């Protein structure tokens, strides 16, 4: 039986849900199809071990666009973001670098290493504020296409030129540096303390198969800084209830606007008739029809798996094949019997409510990358740790904790062996590395979930396990994301749209691709976005 909708959204990740919510609010009859039994894609909370709730994949929130939170009224649908207040970088010698929101305390902490750096730190923060302010504009616009140069593209490009020329020269120059430099070189311009440089540049390698000294990583660093919470740029937080709560809030908003959301409904292929989209076929053989189909999956799935290649031009196909995923990260989620005891900051303390970064030096990160470059996971990886249960007690039974460890590098393609063989060895490496800084760790682990890039791919469908649906490198950004000429959310097949992180402005729990793509769909349908469906 074929049910007919105005629009079908493939994938119930946060972008697919945002997309559906905006379409539904504009009065379209929308259906979201999610392959898994739960919504969220990589934005899920699962109770893998009884009583312990893991944000299995993505684990912190900052980039979610404030306009989406406001327009979809997500707090009413259950979204609560609790701030992460501090960052602790333990050092192998028992020392540490601990930064928190107490400005003077952080100043003194950095000054223990270098007074110059403590002073530069404020200046660095201000500069990145300017950068976040400068790129905020880009997060809200669909990229123009310089290869097509239609009137809209020319207008878009001129608008961009004006936007950038309006920046102070120093700010424009810094922006260019951020777009082109390595994270290590960038922080080198400000600081001399290795551990501070390493921890700051670590944001530049997340989700990317590049070392901190490779150009291009400064942009990834900026990408992590452009988030804002309550008007504060660069603030990061937890979603109460784990990142799955973000997806659920958006889903609730979408349902309220009238969208239908189906789980356990894997799409097998997108149906095309006479060069325009006609609906989708589910894996169970059912067909659903719609004049608009939006895929929130990554470009590889959207163009190479879901649709007949004959429908697509060669330049798009070859561009999508050259598009780089290269998953480089994994997760280790731990259930702990009690709080972890850090050698550098023993006992319970506010540091447990913040992030902990295993990034003692730039060389440490670079060596971690070297291992991956030659096809193995890092023997001593970069690890970004948060303990959600320290902020949100509902995540674990009383007194017990969940610890989320984001691990890099874990290359999707191993030169020797497979991830199925190496999964536990990888988990052991992570635990061994952590135990150097958390002496009681091995005694308090109740349960361990190891998520390799292969597992990310299998579970969420993210090609090669790349958390951003494709690397955030200058060759794959803005009007080049996912491919030159195809960055405006449309595809060569009429009615077929892309709305995932593989489009501008990219990955992270941001929602912007979903919203911008919805704007495109509605404009093409001649509708105005934002209007509420009459009841």
């Amino acid at each position: 039986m074929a049910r007919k909708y105005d629009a079908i959204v493939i994938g119930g990740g946060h972008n697919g849900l945002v997309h559906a919510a905006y379409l539904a609010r504009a009065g379209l009859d929308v259906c979201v199809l999610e392959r898994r039994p739960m919504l969220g894609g990589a934005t899920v909370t699962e109770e893998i071990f009884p009583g312990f709730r893991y944000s299995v994949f993505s684990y912190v929130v900052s980039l979610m666009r404030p306009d989406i939170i406001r327009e979809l009224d997500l707090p009413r649908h259950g979204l609560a973001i609790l701030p992460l207040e501090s960052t602790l970088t333990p050092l192998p010698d028992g020392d540490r670098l601990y930064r928190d929101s107490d400005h003077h305390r952080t100043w003194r902490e950095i000054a223990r290493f270098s007074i110059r750096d403590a002073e530069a730190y404020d200046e660095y923060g201000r500069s990145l504020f300017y950068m976040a302010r400068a790129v905020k504009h880009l997060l809200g616009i669909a990229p123009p296409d310089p290869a097509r140069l239609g009137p809209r593209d020319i207008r878009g490009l001129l608008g961009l030129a004006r936007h950038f020329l309006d920046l102070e020269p120093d700010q424009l120059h810094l922006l260019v540096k951020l777009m082109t430099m390595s994270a290590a070189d960038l922080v080198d311009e400000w600081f001399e303390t290795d551990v501070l440089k390493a921890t700051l540049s670590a944001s530049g390698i997340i989700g990317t198969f590049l070392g901190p000294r490779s150009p291009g990583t400064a942009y990834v660093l900026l990408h992590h800084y452009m988030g804002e919470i309550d008007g504060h740029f660069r603030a990061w937080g937890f979603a109460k209830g784990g990142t799955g709560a973000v997806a659920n809030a958006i889903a609730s908003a979408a349902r309220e606007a009238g969208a239908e959301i189906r789980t356990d409904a894997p799409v097998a292929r997108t149906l095309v008739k006479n060069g325009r989209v006609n609906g989708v076929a589910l894996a169970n053989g059912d067909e659903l029809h719609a004049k608009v189909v939006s895929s929130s999956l990554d470009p590889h799935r959207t163009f190479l798996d879901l649709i007949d290649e004959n429908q697509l031009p060669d330049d798009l196909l070859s561009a999508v094949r050259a598009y780089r995923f290269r998953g480089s990260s994994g997760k280790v989620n731990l259930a702990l019997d009690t709080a972890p005891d850090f050698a550098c900051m023993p006992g319970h303390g506010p540091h447990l409510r913040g992030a902990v970064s295993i990034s003692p030096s730039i060389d440490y990160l670079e060596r971690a990358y070297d291992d991956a470059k030659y096809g193995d996971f890092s023997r001593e990886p970069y690890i970004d740790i948060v303990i959600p249960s320290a902020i949100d007690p509902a995540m674990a039974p009383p007194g017990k904790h969940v610890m989320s460890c984001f691990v890099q590098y874990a290359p999707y393609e191993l030169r020797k062996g497979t991830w199925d063989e190496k999964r536990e060895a990888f988990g052991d490496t992570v635990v061994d590395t952590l135990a150097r800084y958390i002496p009681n760790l091995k005694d308090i682990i109740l349960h361990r979930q190891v998520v390799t890039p292969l597992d990310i791919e299998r579970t969420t469908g993210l090609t090669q396990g790349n958390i951003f649906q494709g690397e955030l490198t200058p060759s794959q950004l803005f009007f080049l994301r996912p491919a030159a000429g195809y960055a405006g959310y449309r595809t060569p097949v009429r009615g077929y749209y892309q709305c995932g992180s593989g489009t501008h402005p990219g990955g992270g729990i941001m929602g912007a691709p979903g919203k911008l793509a919805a704007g495109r769909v509605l404009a093409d349908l001649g509708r105005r976005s934002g209007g509420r469906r009459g009841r």
Partner: protein
Amino acid sequence: MLLETPFHLRTTALCRSRRWRNWSGYAAALSYEPGHEYEYYAVRSGAALFDISPLRKYEVTGADAAALVDRLVTRNVFCCAEEQVLYTPWCDEAGKLIDDGTVQRLGADMFRITAADPCLRWFQDCGLGMDAAVRDVTLDLAALALQGPTSRDILARLVTGADIAALPYFALAEGHIGAAPVTITRTGYTGDLGYEIWLAPEHALAVWDALVETGRGFGLAPAGLDALDVARIEAGLLLKEVDYVSSWTALIESRKSSPYEAGLGWTVQPRPSRDFVGQKALEREAATPSEWALAGLEADWPGIEKRFAAVGLPPLVAGRASRDAVPIYAGAARQGGGAGRQIGYITSATFSPILKKYIALATIRRDFAEQGSRIEVELTVEFVRHRVPARVVGTPFFDPARKRG
């Protein structure tokens, strides 16, 4: 967690009010008694003892030390003799204020600079290629300010090895208090006769005790930041981040100020064939003055009284100094248009107990800044905003002869 200054054991024992504030990461008493009036009057009639250790202190040494300090600040440092002190601001390359403080010339090639906030990196970077070293000596120096008419008598009795009675305004001397070597500068932030005492932290408590002991017969009182704030406004002295925003913290251009805009134009001293940082920009500004200026304001007392009386209250303006920005308007009677429009804002205001006037420091459009100019300031009485007349007056508001004499 706030740090403790070297005097903390004494100040915390005395601080009956339990009122502290965060001064550069240190706990600093706002007042020792529940109210600050007594401490204020100590400044004007006896002697007040302030713990000013949280100030940042830098030491500049080397053959090019004078050249470096001269390059840093707007005032001509080559005119500063040994054992002399200068008050000066310093600017960025665009001629916008970064910070202000004193420069003490301890020797031909040795200077000490005090600053409100950290500046080490900037000082060092300005000295690139020069034979001069800049060191942060904040933790190596405890500091006290002894301010008030009897401060000279107290110090003269205590200090050995230096002639305090003969120490001129803005001069410095090295001597001892008991066994403790101290540097005494005749400087302060109150606009009264006063001294600042710089010493190694290990002598802090002994020097504090000696001052308190000797000061007993001279009306000495330990005093906190509330009293200091009132006194410094009376003296027309600026507070960074209140009366001007440092170019390092101002997120937008319009928040920044030049020395000219902050009433510090007198500190800009161009010198032949040498550059100081910001000189080019300041030369340009001197040629085409900015439309902003700093002004002292005196509110019309009957006007205030009338507004309060209208709701049946006495004029409730005395109390602590205010750091809230308050709008200023062109007087309603202004000729030539623009009447009633906002022309600036008050940055600091206080009721002056000694002058019995309501005074304020303000940033105001230059064409309203001449003395005697009549304007209006906002006054909130019982949750309703009013405008009361005020006029521009010269600063300092209070300037006793003993300050210099």
